[in-house]
């Protein structure tokens, strides 16, 4: 990897994923540098979830390679997975357990010693506004708070790369904004590399760089302003609609 992106926190090289004759991903190249907030913007069915399944090691790419902190996910998955924090699109909390029990469960899967785990929990819950919910059963929490618990869990083992797969689906605007701002702050303050998948253009507008994914391919990459300027579009939404070939409703 002797090239300009060799120090990327997350790097995807020419990832292809077939399901039978269907090419869900068709040669995706992508990188995220430390401290960078990168949005993966694509309409539903563009291949975002498939890409995230490959990035989180759930499935393997048909061809292509993925590196986390320079470690090949395929040949050396354990250190690569240890460096990843993941918030899945689908809720993955055990709803019958308390907030703190969910976090401890995760800590044990990640081999975090009890003392460090308690210290991290004590640090993270107030940061995410969950200090009072510590012992609440997850079933009793609102959708926004459940997401925050999942975020706390993803950050518990101090990952260097955070994968967020459409994390704001189903949340009210206030919760969406709060989570987005928190993640931006983590990028700036902690140097966390973030890949944020979304189909909502406004979430991508504040990103350092955007990858626009359409039909399994990256059709444009760069800072949002540059994409808008290159396409002589009015806004990122306009550029996105041009690239994905969808007409703006009632234009």
């Amino acid at each position, binding site marked *: 990897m002797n090239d300009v992106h060799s120090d990327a926190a997350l790097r995807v090289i020419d990832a292809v994923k077939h399901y039978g004759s269907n090419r*869900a991903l068709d040669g995706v190249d992508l990188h995220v540098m430390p401290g960078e907030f990168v949005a993966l913007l694509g309409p539903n069915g563009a291949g975002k979830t498939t890409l995230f399944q490959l990035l989180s*090691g*759930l*499935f393997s790419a048909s061809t292509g390679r993925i590196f986390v902190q320079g470690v090949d996910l395929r040949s050396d998955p354990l250190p690569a997975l240890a460096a990843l924090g*993941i918030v899945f699109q*689908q809720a*993955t909390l055990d709803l*019958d357990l308390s907030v703190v029990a969910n976090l401890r*469960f995760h800590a044990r899967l990640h081999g975090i010693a009890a003392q460090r785990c308690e210290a991290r929990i004590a640090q993270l819950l107030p940061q995410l506004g969950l200090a009072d919910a510590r012992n609440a059963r997850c079933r009793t929490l609102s959708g926004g708070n459940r997401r925050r618990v999942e975020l706390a869990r993803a950050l518990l083992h101090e990952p260097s790369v955070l994968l967020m797969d459409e994390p704001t689906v189903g949340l009210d605007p206030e919760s969406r904004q709060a989570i987005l701002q928190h993640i931006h702050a983590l990028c700036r303050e902690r140097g966390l590399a973030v890949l944020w998948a979304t189909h909502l253009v406004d979430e991508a507008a504040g990103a350092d760089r955007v990858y626009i994914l359409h039909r399994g391919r990256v059709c444009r990459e760069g800072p949002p302003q540059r994409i808008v300027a290159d396409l002589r579009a009015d806004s990122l939404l306009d550029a996105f609609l041009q690239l994905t070939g969808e007409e703006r409703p009632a234009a």
Partner: protein
Amino acid sequence: MSPAHASGALAALVGREIVRFWQQRGRLLSSVVRPALWLLVFAAGFRSVFGVSVIEPYQTYVLYEVYIVPGLLGMVLLFNGMQSSLAMVYDREMGMMRLLLTAPLPRWYLLLCKLTAGTLLSVLQAYAFLAVCFVFQVTLPWRGLCTVLPALLLCGMTLGALGLLLSVYIRQLENFASTMNFVIFPLFFLSSALYPLWKLEESGVPIVHRLAQLNPFTHMVELIRFSYYGRLEYEALLIVVACLVVFFAAAVLGYDPQRGAIARTPRPAR
């Protein structure tokens, strides 16, 4: 994977299964009531029909309800093994499985932890059923409670591994009913759980007899039966261990992200 990490993950998964089991107390009840009905109703009704002559490992004639206890212990393990596979499918549908499979631990080890957790629950239920047997004064030797433990653990692991393997192929929770029809019932009825194999031979149904001989569940029941009376059936032991190795290896392969069946079909894109 350090020993502390490995044991912590095992404790977390076993703890989670126990908490979930405790929250679904109906499961314990049904796991005891089901074999108890067989014992108290079926066996009582058929006591006079099935006279069981002196066969190994029994020293004397035994009542039918004594004969079917090992088979019913096998049934408890079989149901719980399948229940664990249902839990795997549930976890997959509910997304919990993703959390497990993205932990920085080898997949075979995570599956082994799940299997161990499920087996401990199986064995716990088997002992709950044995308690019922003693309450209803089925004549069983007390010391069998100790000698049967390794057999229960081994058979519980093997049936759990079979459940794990099935969970690779069961795509949705709804398909669980067919598992009952195509896995649990044939395994149970085509075995020595309810009648000794020579009875099948004597009844002039050689195909059924042959199938029952080939059925791994028969060997599990016999392993449990002999162990309960302090005897080791080497042939049954070998067959059960071989089944455990094959089922578990196939399940690990099935869950492999590169080669396994789990990777071949598209997940719903959201």
